[in-house]
């Protein structure tokens, strides 16, 4: 129960921290999207119900903070969550190289989603922005993802005693 009470606040803090703190630290030139890593973590380690709700709320929070229409990031994150969940059923997902590469792959899928949704909803082509800004950011996020996994693993109430071992 504690999960459902704390999760909105935790995610709100995470998104604000990601947006304000990391944005300022990196002079607003690099957006370190740790929310994506949390979604991947949820897909690999958490129960489906919790992970799904987490992805949905996180996506909605991102929609509010980034200013895109509601459901934009929610769709991206939930779809990534589903994909990660399906993958986690087939592979051993504990090694650090796997986490890094998997985060990179998921980031690329998010990039494709961003490209497609921007084109469909706003009619804008953000391919050049993706190549110039998003890909370098993605590399950074991928590299720090194992540390973030360890950090998320330490938050006990996030799992409530249940951790899938794949």
């Amino acid at each position, binding site marked *: 129960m504690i999960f459902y009470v704390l999760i909105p606040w935790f995610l709100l803090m995470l998104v604000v*921290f990601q947006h304000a703190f990391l944005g300022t630290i990196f002079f607003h030139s690099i957006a370190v999207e740790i929310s994506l890593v949390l979604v991947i973590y949820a897909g690999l380690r958490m129960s489906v119900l919790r*992970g799904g709700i987490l992805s949905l709320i996180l*996506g909605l929070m991102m929609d509010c903070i980034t200013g895109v229409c*509601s459901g*934009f990031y929610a*769709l991206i994150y*939930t779809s990534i969550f589903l994909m990660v969940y399906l993958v986690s059923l087939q592979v051993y997902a504990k090694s650090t190289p796997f986490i890094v590469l998997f985060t990179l792959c998921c980031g690329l899928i998010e990039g494709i989603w961003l490209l497609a949704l921007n084109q469909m909803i706003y009619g804008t082509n953000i391919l050049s922005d993706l190549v110039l800004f998003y890909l370098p950011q993605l590399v950074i996020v991928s590299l720090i993802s194992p540390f973030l996994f360890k950090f998320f693993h330490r938050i006990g109430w996030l799992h409530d005693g249940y951790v899938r071992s794949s």
Partner: protein
Amino acid sequence: MSIPKKYRPTAIAVLVIVFSVIILILSVKMTSDTGFMRKLILDVAAPIERLIRTPLDKTIAVWNRYLFLVGLGEENRRLKRENDQLKNQLLRYQEGYLEGLRLQKLLTLKDQTDYVSMTARVIGIDQKSLIKTILINKGTSHGIRNGLPVMNDQGVLGRIIETSWHVSRVLLISDGNSNIDALVQGTRVQGMLQGSGTMRCVLKYIPKTEEVKTGDLVVSSGMTEVFPKGLLLGTVIRADKKDSGLFQRIEVVPAVDFTRLEEVLVLMVTEKKRK
């Protein structure tokens, strides 16, 4: 209809996606005001964001200010160096300008004289010793020989008394050994202008019957081959008839300021200009 337990997790995930899609479609279709939840989240997030961002921004501003100051110090040093270089450059240009002005005066003088002349630079001044002389950077290889008169735009300086290939010594008219046939411009009375050893000259052999007054100009008389006629030698500053004897004691201050000599003109008195 119940979903098999095996597929329940996937079904939940798909359900969540469907929910997201519905929200997205509704959000795109409904272009009304910001929804309640968005407003709430924004209102909650804004103060937290401000709380995080304010100290961070201030820290970064301080850091940027520090970096700016470090850069400013370096820029200051660079500008000082540049300023010194420019000052030196300006000094050189000023020197060049002043030299140009002096040479222009000499050129004007060169045009005015009937004789072929040669510009020379003063390379040494020796006015403290017994013989008042200066050295110029032209010698026999340039056609200079002993006895040639030397002047500048102010008047006559003296004459060449010694020459080497590339340097010549000029005896100034203020030296005691210098004697020049001269005349007072106003009265046309002739005398001998002799250096007095100091920065003065004495005009000798002017009878007391002649009227010479302070301010009269003294010019070369042209009686000898050395100095052409009419060159300015100096100005009378004192004419005294009280001395015993036949002649007046007339003190003359040379037209040339010997303390500021840089370029001079040597008159090649044997070579007249072809007009």
